[in-house]
């Protein structure tokens, strides 16, 4: 294990280092030596948000005010604001989120970034939402690009991209402390400090989140996390930004029903370092290095495994069946990225970049070997924004990617945007993207070892052959983005169509007669989804905010390996209403309705869970005490009562996943 692993890592590290030096040298040659008099370029291209009206794809922005009024504790719950999105809880502390449906707890069609760096799991390709090492307070805003966006973010930007952008230390409160206490054992706390000295700016956050999860399940989780971000202005044109994040989790996991829960512990450490050079808002390049590591320990000793077996089978075994289940794994990710934003003329802007990344996983249990499993990817991308006629923009981009698992390929995107009149834009776009299979889908080799004579000593669950290729999607959309400042209303409406092919399912598991074989990932299904989405933002009065989002989708799928057709909700509605009153009072209601759907790994044949109405209510009061601003808020989650989440109830599954009303009180102080 030890030496082989280190040699491999040193080799790739050297490659990455040489690549960095090369890229930095190339960029210095491009540097402009225009005289700049002292003030740093603050609003660089990467900090300036593209106007939603001119974006080549449908974008949803979740800002701080929405986050504050949402009444959520978990970041994943913020995705309920996105039309078409579904957020479900696999257990009380295991949220799963998807922008389109067609997903399970390891939804791997969503690219999730923190400050531009991908944070999805290298092993499962999914997103461990409950383990993000940032607090809700650390977030400045979240930008969600809906629809395939391979051209900018590569593989895994299959259903869309969620980019979580943290607050800039230069724009932060000096001190902020928050404490949350409530039902279901809710005990959260965060402490954040931010400061600046001369050319340094930094922010440090420490926090914890704990609750007992669903009442009928053993799914309590404690997360302790911290993050540090420091920015340094080297000179007017160059700045360095570094971020360090860690999280430590302790969680109960019910692997098998009718057996005790196992205790999972994990820790993660992420770091990213970026050097930026800006000549002006329109001319910037940056180089970024990141390193992430995660390890999880999940051990369960079961004195007698028989209760978990089918009763008929259990009856055949006259002696107790002890079993030690161990599902430890560790992952590492190292990457280097370079991006350049440049405006060439008043009508022409380009973005270009390259990335090199290495993902590795080590898990004797999952891969049946103590060798490190690695995957290496290289990608190059570019896009052009060209105003070729007054009120007409052409935005074209493409990404080319090579990776260890799947065939190399292009992900193109093209969009045409026309300003019908000021404040009203029409967009027509086409894009394609790929989802590279995760390590788990390509190379997993695991099963259940029982102390029984062969061939019953090992029941394979997954036997990966490495033959699965990328899933593909082609999508087109027509969108209309409008802004009516006279009535303080803005929004967008969109028609979309998405054609998925090569969707992966696990097939071929045979436990009926020896030789037993595990399932293998194969590209099996196709699915077509089309529909409409709409978002409206309205501020009829200075302290009143209404936000409405809705979607309608029709799905048709071959449904051979997995039932995709009913995994996409026919409709979703999200409504946020918030009102500020005199004396610092504010009230908000955050409602979402998702029509019937199923999560693809929820078992129970192909049955769907009924429509879910989800409502959070929040009442808050802010007041000042000296130099401190204090806010006290009471939140009631699931105000409409309980519902079954993720799974159907017994007899399909004895998992009682029942989300109930829970209330909590949150106090925060700012200085």
């Amino acid at each position, binding site marked *: 294990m030890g030496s082989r692993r280190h040699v491999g890592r040193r080799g790739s590290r050297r490659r990455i280092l040489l690549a960095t030096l090369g890229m930095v040298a190339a960029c210095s040659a491009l540097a402009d030596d225009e*005289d*700049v*008099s*002292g*003030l*740093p*370029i*603050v*609003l660089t*291209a990467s*900090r*300036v*948000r*593209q*106007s939603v009206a*001119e974006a080549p794809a449908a974008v949803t922005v979740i800002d701080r005010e929405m986050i504050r009024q949402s009444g959520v504790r978990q970041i994943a719950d913020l995705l309920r604001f996105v039309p078409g999105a579904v957020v479900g809880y696999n257990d009380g502390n295991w949220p799963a989120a998807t922008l389109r449906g067609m997903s399970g707890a390891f939804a791997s069609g969503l690219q999730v970034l923190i400050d531009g760096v991908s944070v999805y799991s290298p092993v499962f390709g999914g997103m461990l939402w409950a383990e993000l090492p940032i607090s809700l307070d650390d977030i*400045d805003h979240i930008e969600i690009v809906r629809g395939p966006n391979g051209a900018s973010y590569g593989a895994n930007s299959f259903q869309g991209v969620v980019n979580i952008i943290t607050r*800039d230390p*230069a*724009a*932060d*409160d*000096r001190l902020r402390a928050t404490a949350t206490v409530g039902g279901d054992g809710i005990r959260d706390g965060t402490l954040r400090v931010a400061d*600046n000295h*001369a*050319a340094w*700016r930094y922010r440090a956050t420490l926090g914890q989140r704990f609750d007992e999860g669903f009442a009928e399940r053993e799914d309590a989780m404690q997360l302790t996390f911290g993050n540090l971000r420091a920015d340094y*202005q080297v000179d*007017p044109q160059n700045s360095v930004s570094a971020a360090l994040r860690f999280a430590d989790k302790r969680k109960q996991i019910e692997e098998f029903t009718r057996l005790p829960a196992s205790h999972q512990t994990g820790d993660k450490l992420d770091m990213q370092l970026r050097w930026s050079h800006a000549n*002006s*808002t*329109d001319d910037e390049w940056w180089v970024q290095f990141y390193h992430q590591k995660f390890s999880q320990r999940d051990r369960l000793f079961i004195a007698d495994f028989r209760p978990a077996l089918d009763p008929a089978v259990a009856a055949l075994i006259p002696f107790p069946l002890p079993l030690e289940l161990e599902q430890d794994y560790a992952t590492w990710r190292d990457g280097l990225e370079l991006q350049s934003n440049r*405006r060439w003329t*008043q009508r022409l802007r380009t973005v270009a970049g390259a990335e090199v990344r290495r993902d590795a996983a080590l898990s004797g249990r999952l891969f049946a070997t103590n060798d490190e499993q690695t995957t290496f990817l290289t990608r190059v991308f570019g896009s052009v924004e060209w105003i070729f006629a007054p009120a007409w923009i052409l935005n074209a981009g493409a990404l080319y990617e090579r990776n260890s698992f799947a065939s190399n390929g292009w992900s193109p995107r093209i969009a045409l945007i026309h300003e019908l009149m*000021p404040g009203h834009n029409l967009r027509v776009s086409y894009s394609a993207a790929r989802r590279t299979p995760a390590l788990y889908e390509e190379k997993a080799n695991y099963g259940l070892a029982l102390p029984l004579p062969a061939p019953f000593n090992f029941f394979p669950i997954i036997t990966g052959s490495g033959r699965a290729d990328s899933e593909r999607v082609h999508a087109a959309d027509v969108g209309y983005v409008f*802004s009516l400042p*006279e009535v303080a209303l803005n929004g967008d409406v969109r028609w979309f169509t998405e054609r998925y092919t090569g969707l992966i399912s696990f097939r071929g598991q045979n436990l009926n007669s020896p030789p037993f074989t595990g399932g293998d990932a194969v590209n099996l299904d196709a699915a077509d989804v089309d529909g409409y989405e709409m978002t409206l933002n309205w501020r009829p009065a200075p302290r009143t905010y209404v936000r409405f989002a809705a979607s309608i989708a029709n799905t048709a799928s071959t449904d051979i390996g997995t039932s995709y057709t009913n995994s996409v909700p026919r409709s979703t509605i999200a409504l946020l209403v918030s009102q500020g009153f005199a004396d610092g009072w504010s009230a908000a209601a955050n409602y979402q309705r998702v029509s019937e759907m199923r999560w693809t790994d929820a078992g129970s044949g192909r049955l769907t869970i009924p429509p879910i109405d989800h409502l959070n209510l929040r009442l808050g009061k802010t007041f000042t005490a000296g130099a401190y601003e204090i806010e006290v808020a009471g939140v009631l989650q699931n105000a409409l009562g309980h519902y079954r989440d993720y799974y159907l109830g017994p007899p399909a599954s004895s998992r009682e996943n029942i989300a109930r009303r829970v209330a909590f009180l949150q106090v925060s102080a700012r200085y």
Partner: protein
Amino acid sequence: MKYLVFIAVASVLGFVSTLTQAAEIRAVRILAGDENSFVQKMATALADVLRQADPTLEVELTAKGNAADVADADSEKRLFVLIGERAFGTADTGMSPVVALLPQRAAVADSRRPLVSMIYFEQPLARVLNLASLLLPGRDGRMQTVGIVVSPEAQRFVTAAETLGRERKLGVRVESVRSEADVGRAIARVVEEAKLLIAVPDAMVHNANTVQSVLLVSYHAGVPVLGYSAAYLRAGAAVALYSTPEQLAQQAADVIANYRANKSVAATQWPRRYVVGINATVVHSLGMTLPDAEVLEKKLASMKE
């Protein structure tokens, strides 16, 4: 009483002698302290303009020279142009007439020097507020608010701000800070109410360190910044109103020409020519639609200051 008469007569004589000197200026000596490129550019531009206008005029440019200079016998025929705070404060120009270009805060009347005119670097607040009113057209007669953050010394330059604002249908909110560390929070408070943040030259509030907070806090609140220099525009101000070194140099040259032709010259002057700069990317990103810079400049020129 006698004392007063003496001073009055001396002033008149001084004035008259200045007048007689006027026609005889044969040499112009430009002194720019070793401050920054803005000052240097102004000096070079002025030298070029003067030489082009009158090749017989002896123009000497001491761009980075020691500002302490001894006047000699030809002092009446020589005119000094002092550019920048340092040159103005330290140069010994004897009895020669002086034209000064400098920031407002350094403009202290010096009775020892025969000052022809002082030209400020900054724009008059009335003009800045005029531009602000063009950027924020009032809606249904609702007054829009602009915000200004100042340090105690710069506060005296914005005392008339509220009155000037009212004349232009703008509410002006002025917030004062006592140290650099308070700037970020002051900006955050101001942008809760203001739809535009006006940056007024002030070393404590707007410097290489604080400008990050100023621009980022206001940007995140969706509030554009109206800056006072090309550097501020480049840093991320949505719009800037400033005079280029060449424009100020031209104004100084005009003053010198008028003086030599015995025409009257105002003792203190604001810049006559200026540029409106727009950072298109930032403006766009804030969802603002603005007319072209030239259109704004024309409108601004027609407005009363």
